[in-house]
């Protein structure tokens, strides 16, 4: 049993894949910042950001369908913003009778809701391209370059390494539970037990998982110690950033800066 679906990385030959991970991470963050900074209802800015995002998706050879499908998975959260359609005062668009109440959608409300949804959708696309075009070890390197503390980067590395191992263990536990969750034909026997009981079963499995994690971390510690680990986190120096990467970074920042500037004017 081997969990592959957890790794979002999709190897392709593309300029986006070849980009230095440090440049990629920085530009992704600046893109998301640009989207966040653009005002509500700045439609031209959104169009520009969207065309930029779409261009990057095209260049990445990941497949527009793949990225858009994944991006829609992050969408349910927009429900949280739904009420603003009706609560922000302004010119009424439509009015729906809901029981004794009338819900009135206002123009500024709709504008705000659509803006938030768009910004979110654009940002998540870039995050998906980053994850799908960059092997996680390269992201770790980029995190180090962005001055994330070493210990934290080491924890990210360990968590990612054992994500797969422990997810395998969790799956085995889930299968074992499923294999024993029969249904009785006897009248009056309700299968599945009470919520509290089901919770405790799941909890017992979680406890089991944690116990195994404890024991495994002991063995990992021994393997680390036997190779000289002394509590300090060490790593090889980061490779130099090539000139073309610097240029890409400068170009990307210039484009995003321009778009942000447009947001100011319009």
């Amino acid at each position, binding site marked *: 049993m081997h969990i592959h679906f957890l790794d979002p990385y999709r190897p392709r030959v593309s300029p986006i894949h070849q980009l230095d991970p440090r440049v990629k991470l920085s530009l992704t963050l600046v893109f998301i910042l640009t989207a966040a900074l653009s005002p509500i209802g700045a439609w031209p800015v959104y169009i520009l950001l969207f*065309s930029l995002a779409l261009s990057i998706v095209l260049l990445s050879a990941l497949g527009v369908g793949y990225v858009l499908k994944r991006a829609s998975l992050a969408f349910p959260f927009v429900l949280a913003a739904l009420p603003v359609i009706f609560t922000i005062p302004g010119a009424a668009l439509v009015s729906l009778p809901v029981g004794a109440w009338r819900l009135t959608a206002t123009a500024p409300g709709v504008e705000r809701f659509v803006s938030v949804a768009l910004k979110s959708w654009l940002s998540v696309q870039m995050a*998906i391209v980053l994850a799908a075009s960059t092997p996680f070890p390269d992201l770790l390197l980029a995190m180090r370059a962005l001055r994330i503390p070493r210990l934290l980067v080491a924890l990210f590395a360990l968590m990612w390494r054992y994500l797969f191992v422990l997810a395998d263990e969790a799956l085995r536990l889930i299968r074992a539970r499923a294999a024993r969750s029969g249904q009785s034909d006897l009248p009056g026997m309700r299968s599945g037990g009470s919520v509290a009981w089901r*919770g405790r079963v799941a909890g017992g499995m979680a406890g089991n998982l944690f116990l195994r994690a404890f024991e495994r971390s002991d063995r990992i510690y021994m393997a680390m110690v036997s190779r000289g680990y002394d509590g300090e986190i060490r790593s090889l120096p980061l490779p130099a950033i090539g000139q073309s990467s610097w240029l890409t970074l400068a170009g990307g920042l210039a484009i995003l800066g321009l778009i942000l500037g447009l947001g100011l004017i319009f």
Partner: protein
Amino acid sequence: MLLSPVAMHIPDGFLSTLVSLVLWAATAIVVGYALKRVSKDLGERQVPLMGVLAAAIFAGQMLNFSVAGGTSGHLMGAALATILLGPWAAILVLTTVVGVQALIFQDGGLLAMGANIFNMAIVGVAVSYTVYRSVQKLSGGRKWGVFTGGFAAAWLSIFIAALGVALQLAASGVSPANIAIPAMGGIHALIGIGEGLITLGALAFLYATRRDLLHIGEPAPARGGLVWAAGLLIALLLAVASPLASVFPDGLEWVAGEQGFLEAAKSPLYQVIPDYVFPGISNTTLATIIAGIVGALIVFGVALTVAYLRRNRQTTG
């Protein structure tokens, strides 16, 4: 979907830049301090332990169970991590979990990551610690203290963290306080029961097999008092601020309205170029949209040309 803990991971685009950056700053300070504490107080054995436990929390989130009406109980893990590792290491473990979820699965945004770490790793852990430690003290380290404390810590950590999310959304102007707070609070009061039950089950299992891992009756960790006080303060603040905010939403609306510096910067610029129009087009809205489309076409053209050139090179080369 909204009833899963996904509702706790805020994506990008929802929080205003100001709220995001303020929470990033707060998170950086607390996590930085936790890193210092952990390096100082805990042995080198803790590093692999924290990494593997972070993976275990993630894997534990796969062990959902059905609660009612199509919703399922999940694990956030703040309470369990706090009980097993103490508050400082738990903050780092949850930070790692939230970070990996955002980077790999886009579960929560990148600019919003500061807020998500703040809610789950800092608020979640501090509240868990305060509750668990207090119940432990009351019970004098007896068995019921472990279980009641664990359940209560798990439930309250989810509930208070959810109130935090709701307040942040309200302060960003994307969800009115008088709707977001009761909705998030209500839903997570239920989800918290699932978290409590899983935590309880896990504690019962560990209590039976490896009681030493639960550190029952051990003295408080270094600066534990600080976390205890912070947890109490956060819990009280959010529990008091939320009802207030939902009754008097104007304060938050004001924050939400004032925060966008671009929005603020926008208006004077409008006055500098009051009649900015395309030649021959007198409608400003139309002009801006046309400008946007022209820009988009330029960017698109470049991307398509590059893609086309690359394909040609691949087929010929």
